[in-house]
């Protein structure tokens, strides 16, 4: 297990180095931040001075090395636009995205998995058909449209829930959380629901497919031949078996939602990372873009790592390097 951990950590480090190069070069290729940084009527002298100050006159490889050097010291540089350290900027936005994402993905899982399992257990029941209809809807309806519809219905027509913003927050360990206030929850509900619909559809499908396959398997037949009730067969035997693909989807969706909840955050003007990255792309705020993309890569690596550990916990064959 220790060898496995070390190997994965080394892999992760290598991936982060490659990502940093790709991201740096990629961002370097778009636009000229000087046009954003100084006013158009600045003198040539100011212009050259600014270019020198930000190091834009250096060749690309030297700029990268400078960046990498400060990065090793934990410094992502300063935002051109906000003129504050990028790390602080991102960390101030992260909790908002984190709680939105967690609410959406966990909600989708907690609802979707049991619904999917039921649909797989009783594939011909009317309830199962309704569940599958819901999942088709969740797959095919675009997120932005669902968001707008929810705003129209719950915020504009019924006026039950606010249309946007984050609501009241409470500070815990220096971080603002809105899940700790009732008002915060009321702001969270609509964007979380919007985000979770697609994920829930996915969870329903995966759980149903796993369940249907498992119910036909020999070990289930053998368990039933032992006189186990269906409940014990499902929760004692089947659940652990079908968890493996579900954990994969959970991890992937968690990472993807964290990184790319952009549309939903924009519609509900949720002050998260998605809005930050859109703004910084528009203003060519290079350090923010680079740091954000690296953070996303880091999150993916960490979540995949957690998923691998979860596999090992669920499936003994993975533990012994057998599968």
């Amino acid at each position, binding site marked *: 297990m220790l060898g496995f951990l070390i190997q994965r950590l080394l892999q992760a480090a290598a991936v982060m180095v490659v990502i940093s190069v790709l991201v740096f070069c990629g961002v370097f290729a778009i636009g000229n931040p000087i046009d954003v940084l100084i006013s158009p009527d600045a003198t040539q002298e100011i212009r050259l001075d600014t270019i020198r100050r930000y190091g834009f006159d250096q060749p690309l490889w030297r700029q990268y090395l400078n960046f990498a050097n400060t990065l090793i010291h934990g410094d992502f540089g300063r935002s051109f636009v906000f003129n504050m350290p990028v790390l602080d900027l991102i960390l101030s936005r992260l909790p908002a995205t984190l709680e939105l994402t967690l609410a959406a993905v966990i909600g989708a899982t907690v609802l979707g998995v049991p619904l999917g399992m039921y649909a797989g257990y009783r594939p*011909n029941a009317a309830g199962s058909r309704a569940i599958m209809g819901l999942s088709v809807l969740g797959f095919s309806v675009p997120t932005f449209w669902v968001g707008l519809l929810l705003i129209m219905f719950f915020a504009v027509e019924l006026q039950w829930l606010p249309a946007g913003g984050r609501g009241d927050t409470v500070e815990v360990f220096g971080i603002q959380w809105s899940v700790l206030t009732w008002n915060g929850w009321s702001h969270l509900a609509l964007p979380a629901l919007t985000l979770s619909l697609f994920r829930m559809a996915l969870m329903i499908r995966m759980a149903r497919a796993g369940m249907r396959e498992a119910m036909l*398997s*020999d*070990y289930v*037949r*053998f*368990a*039933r*031949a*032992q*006189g*186990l*009730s269906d409940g*014990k067969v499902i929760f*004692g*035997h089947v659940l*652990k*078996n079908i968890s493996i693909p579900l954990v994969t989807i959970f991890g992937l969706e968690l990472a993807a939602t964290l990184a790319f909840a952009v549309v939903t955050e924009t519609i509900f003007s949720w002050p998260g990372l998605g809005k930050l990255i859109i703004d910084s792309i528009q203003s060519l705020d290079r350090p923010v873009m680079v740091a954000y993309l690296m953070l996303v890569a880091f999150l993916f690596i960490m979540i995949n790592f957690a998923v691998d550990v979860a596999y090992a916990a*669920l*499936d*003994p*064959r993975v533990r*012994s390097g*057998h599968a």
Partner: protein
Amino acid sequence: MTAALDVRGLKTHFFTRGGVVKAVDGVDLSIQRGRVLGLVGESGSGKSVTGLSILGLIDLPGRIVEGSVRLDGQELVGLDRDAARRVRGRKIAMIFQDPMMTLNPVLRVGTQMSMALRAHEAISSDTVRQRSLAALGTVGLPAPEQCLAAYPHQLSGGMRQRVAIAIALLHSPSVIVADEPTTALDVSIQSQILQEMQRLCDQTGVALVWITHDLAVVSSLAHDIAVMYAGRIVESGPAEDVLAEPRHPYTRGLLDSVPGEAKPGEKLAQIPGSIPALIDLPPGCAFRARCGRADRACETMPEIVDLGGNRSARCVHPLEAA
């Protein structure tokens, strides 16, 4: 003496969109305690469905439409779900073909045995452990303690099948239905398991229904044989007599297909044609299209003919006794 298992006129049909599949269409079986009945047939003859029907494990779209299954005199057909569940695993057990698949890959053997035990009895963990170890010992596993803590993939195929048999034995059932339990094992392991089963039948008095397509296995293990074809028993009787002197043309054909005495290079004997589709089976003997002795009389379903000596065949033109 009441038979441990007595099956009368069992019919299990599957109601599919394409029509009614009469997988089991009037099967009679009877078996005494401590005896082994070999249920023989090709793939698709309905032998596995018969086994599942006896345990009440037929799922929709299939169901038992007729017949009776008596276990120690108790009628099993028509029991409600929970009553049927309480019989399964306690009074009658079943083991399956592929030991790779019948044990749950993600649970320890001990966990699976504990669930099987607690399905019928509320007992302490200590008792669970003792009885699990005892059952594993009974089936001849060398290190029951390690086995209990092992996951299925850490055991060999033969050991896994022994574990499955141990699970089947946990509640000392009257009858075990074994659905080709040695087919997936190699020959040396196969014979070990067969010996083990023989010993268990003698010692515990459990009655064994051994479903197989392998006549060699049956000849070494079974006291009685029932040959199935297209959902019906076509011949039955004491194993020795049936194998030495089959009376139904199909049994003859099966025995001739065993390549035991063929010489290399010589064409192997086979039964012409294949087993008919069970949807909309034409009336009459289902074997008549493949049978050299068939004539007009075979176009009505033959009754079971008592041939004396506990033997019977479902044939209008049974082969003569030598």
